[in-house]
């Protein structure tokens, strides 16, 4: 049940090794944990952070793509992009609802995004310079998101797993529409093909960074794996993504911007060059090309909508009072 009203959060519950052992046994037995079940505070905190940041990413992800809705090259592309951006908003809402079941309010979560206290995926701090970027985002960014999200459908926390199932069903449309844009450009005029290649050059490495730091540097992996919030490591997922994507690029005659890229016949995997983790850290730290612009735009929309939220609540309150007064009159 997605009800925050029913979640009584025990204030600073003391650690309880016995309950924790029972909890871990349930996880090991692949039982789903539901909102009102006992859970260690660290599990709750980890999930709130992860689900909220995932939700923020969906919401901020609407901005780079929304930028192209009015400039899509045809009515068909425009309708598809509009539907995709609407889906991203929907995904953000499913995820916020899942986080709320852990005893945090929507308003608190939104405030954490707007103040910059919680992060969103670093990929959305890159600009969308041409129409081909919209193709690449669907193909690579949504493709990478699918790799990350499919294992989350089996995550130990029930509401998160259920939200992910809905999201994964919809992401498939996103990836296919993006790849179709790339196919069309790659088979178009030399200028169009060059535009597709340029977009791939700019987005390839940031897309690989979406899987997070290498396994050796990842702070949260061990606990997250033990709690079955995570089922594959960052590097495993990154490799899967590269293996799936390289042939798709070759199929449409595009070149992956990595001169170290080679296919290893023995392992059956594509081996790729070193990722520039300094760039990743810099973008996470707030210094990417668009960090400030994204947060500014999100804050401006939130502030501009304040009167709508207030008016809706005031109207609901007025209706409630009138109805109550009407009932009194009828009773007399």
């Amino acid at each position, binding site marked *: *049940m*997605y*009800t*925050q*009203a*029913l979640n009584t959060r025990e204030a600073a519950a003391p650690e309880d090794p016995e309950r924790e052992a029972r909890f871990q046994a349930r996880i090991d037995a692949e039982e789903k944990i*539901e909102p*009102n*079940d*006992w859970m260690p505070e660290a599990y709750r905190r980890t999930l709130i952070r992860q689900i909220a940041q995932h939700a923020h990413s969906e919401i901020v992800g609407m901005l780079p793509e929304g930028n192209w809705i009015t400039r899509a090259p045809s009515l068909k592309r425009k309708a598809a992009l509009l*539907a995709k951006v*609407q*889906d991203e908003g*929907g995904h953000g*809402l*499913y995820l916020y*609802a899942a986080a*709320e079941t852990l005893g945090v*309010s*929507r*308003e608190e979560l939104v405030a954490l995004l707007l103040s910059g206290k919680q992060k969103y995926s670093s990929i959305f701090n890159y600009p969308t310079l041409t129409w081909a970027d919209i193709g690449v985002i669907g193909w690579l960014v949504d493709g990478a998101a699918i790799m990350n999200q499919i294992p989350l459908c089996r995550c130990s926390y029930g509401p998160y797993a*259920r*939200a992910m199932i809905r999201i994964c069903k*919809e992401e498939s449309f996103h990836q296919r529409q993006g790849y179709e844009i790339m196919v069309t450009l790659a088979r178009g005029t030399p200028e169009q093909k060059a535009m597709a290649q340029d977009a791939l050059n700019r987005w390839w490495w940031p897309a690989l960074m979406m899987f997070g730091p290498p396994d050796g540097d990842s702070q949260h992996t061990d606990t997250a794996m033990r709690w079955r919030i995570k089922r594959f490591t960052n590097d495993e997922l990154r490799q899967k993504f590269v293996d799936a994507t390289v042939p798709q690029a070759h199929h449409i005659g595009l070149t992956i911007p990595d001169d170290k890229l080679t296919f290893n016949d023995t392992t059956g995997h594509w081996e790729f060059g070193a990722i520039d983790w300094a760039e990743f850290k810099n973008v996470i730290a707030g210094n990417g090309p668009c960090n400030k612009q994204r947060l500014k735009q999100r804050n401006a929309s939130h502030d501009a909508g*304040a009167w709508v*939220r*207030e008016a*809706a*609540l005031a*109207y*609901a309150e007025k*209706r409630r009072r009138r109805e109550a007064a009407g009932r009194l009159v009828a009773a007399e």
Partner: protein
Amino acid sequence: MTDKNTPLWEVFIRTRNGMAHRHVGSVHAADATMALQNARDVYTRRGEGLSVWVVRSSEITASDPSEKGMMFEPADSKIYRHPTFYDVPDDVGHM
């Protein structure tokens, strides 16, 4: 700024005729009309439903999972409620 939190509503959708409404998630909305519209936009973008119900989350009374043992014990201890508890001669055939 809004000080008051916008109320939470649980959303139930009937996917096909003949099926029961099923819980699919929740939305925030100031009133029931807007909750219905939000539920339509968030949960039925691809023909998932024929009918939507919304219920204020605060109106739901739920059992406590930590007391599920006591709550459901009566259902576990009465095996005579199941058809397999009763012996029927084989030559009677299917019953």
